[in-house]
């Protein structure tokens, strides 16, 4: 096995990883600001891509404008999920797992909307750089992969810095103790709104980028969503760096498994890993963060 193949597998694994990482980032942001688990993240991306496609396939709008509209829609839907459902649940008392079910419902609704209005057959999206290839020695990456790799790294670094700013810190405060946060002058409402909206935007971006690589049906985001959640749940939804790194790690692991054991082994290997990890990790790493005992 040549170095070039190794580099190829690693780089394309990282490119896939960056998709999951971006998706995960949106999920982490929402958990940080609302303590809610957003299962609809993947389908928000799907809707952005589908709506954009609807506009430019019908030649109503140029591609770039259609994509912007798709992203805006994802952002708005994300915001609405928070305003209409999550906030209301939160005001009733601790979310206690109901956020799972609600975002699951939103996910189903979005899937259904896509199936009903935009059709269930697989379609192919606009290539968006998938066909522009760069070759270095015998490592081949297309423009799409390079862009997403760079974009992801930039976004992640930006977010890492953001977390240290005042608005960044107030995200967590808004979730844990909104009243206290308000007394410090934090506009909790606005922090949440912006976070959910940006998260929707991220989801939309991921949706569009992935759509450009595959032929898509309404469920195409599911594997990425699952990978993102696996990384988030193992790494800790209330953290940042660890789950993101795990997301990249998992993608690499899957890509290498696929190379070594065959294409379908890639998916199976992920789940085997999850099950083994949870069976074997010492209890300390597995317990949900407990409140201090009285």
């Amino acid at each position: 096995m040549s170095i070039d193949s190794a580099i190829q597998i690693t780089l394309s694994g990282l490119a896939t990883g960056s998709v999951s990482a971006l998706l995960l980032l949106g999920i982490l942001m929402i958990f940080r600001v609302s303590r809610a688990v957003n299962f609809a993240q993947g389908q928000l991306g799907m809707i952005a891509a589908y709506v954009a496609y609807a506009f430019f396939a019908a030649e109503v709008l140029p591609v770039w404008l259609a994509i912007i509209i798709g992203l805006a829609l994802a952002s708005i839907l994300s915001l609405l999920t928070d305003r209409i459902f999550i906030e209301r649940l939160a005001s009733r008392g601790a979310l206690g797992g109901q956020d799972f079910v609600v975002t699951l419902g939103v996910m189903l609704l979005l899937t259904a909307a896509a199936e009903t209005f935009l059709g269930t057959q697989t379609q192919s999206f606009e290539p968006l750089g998938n066909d522009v290839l760069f070759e270095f020695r015998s490592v081949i990456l297309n423009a799409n992969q390079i862009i997403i790799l760079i974009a992801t790294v930039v976004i992640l670094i930006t977010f890492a810095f953001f977390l240290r700013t005042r608005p960044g810190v107030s995200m967590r405060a808004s979730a844990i103790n909104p009243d206290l946060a308000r007394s410090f002058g934090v506009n909790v409402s606005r922090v949440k709104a912006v976070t959910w909206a940006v998260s929707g935007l991220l989801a939309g971006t991921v949706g569009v980028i992935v759509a450009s690589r595959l032929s898509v049906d309404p469920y195409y985001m599911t594997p990425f969503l699952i990978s993102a959640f696996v990384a988030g749940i193992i790494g800790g939804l209330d953290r940042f760096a660890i789950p993101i790194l795990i997301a990249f790690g998992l993608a690499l692991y899957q890509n290498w498994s696929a190379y070594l054991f065959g294409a379908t082994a890639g998916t199976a290997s992920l789940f085997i890993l999850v099950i083994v990890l949870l069976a074997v990790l010492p209890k300390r790493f597995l317990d949900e963060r407990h409140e201090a005992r009285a």
Partner: protein
Amino acid sequence: MLNRRVALTLVPLVVILASAAPVLLNRYWLFLVTTLLAYVIALIGLKVLLGDAGQFSLGQAAFIGIGAYSAAVITERYSLALPLEILAVMVICGVIAAIIAIPALRVSGLRFALVTLAFGELLQWFLRENKNVTGGEQGLYTPPMLLGPIDGKSQLTLYVVALVLALIFSVLAWHIPSTKVGRAMAAIRESPLAAESVGVSAWRTKLFAFVFAAIAAGISGVLIAHVSGSISPTSFGLFSSIYLVVAIILGGARFVFGAWIGAIYLVLVPALFTTIGLDSVYVVLSGAVLLVVIMVFPTGIAGVLSRAMRSRQNSPGKVNA
């Protein structure tokens, strides 16, 4: 939930309906009702695991799949009679559940859901990969049940078997909450702190619920395999598990009656929409249904009915039992 009077009026009604069904319904609708009864059993499993013990599983459809494929293989290759077939499936599902329990029961909440999801996806991969055993993507044909002299192919037989099994599971699941282990489940579900204080063994209680749900799903799968005659991996994947959860939450996860309502939603409602010609509406419906239920009546339809009956009982002029 049911008081004496309601039970006494309901039971004869149910008996009449149950006996009338095979006579009144045509082949297609009898087939639907039998399928419905099969899903009642799987939903009863979820009622105990999710409703009573509070564990959110995304793998129930996978266990149905295990039951279904086992049934197909067992009947095809070993020609076991139905009782033995059911016993075999119970053992298979029980053992697999116990194995999955090793990682699954060490964690709770989201992580538990993730393990069940991972298991379900692994099963999908296994079913699709092993073409010689499982028929791969195409699925498997299931021979009819073997019941000695009784015709295993007849709709009536299938209906009666399904009905009997559904009733047995209903009674068992209805009884569980008032037992020692049922109370332990309530403690785990409502207040892990209280559970700890009374010395409840969380993992043992969860194991019981998990194995019960797996066995219920397995038996459900046996029925589904024989009723539909052919099975394929798609029916037992993640989204099917999700729809099962939607169904039990809609019906009312704490109530056995909720499992029955959920099964109606799962089986009859889409059939109704298809006859009217509005196929895709069902899909839209599920998402909306879930949202409305959680936001407006989290205890599900059965919960709402139960509260309505209880307030009727408490109305002035009546003496409480």
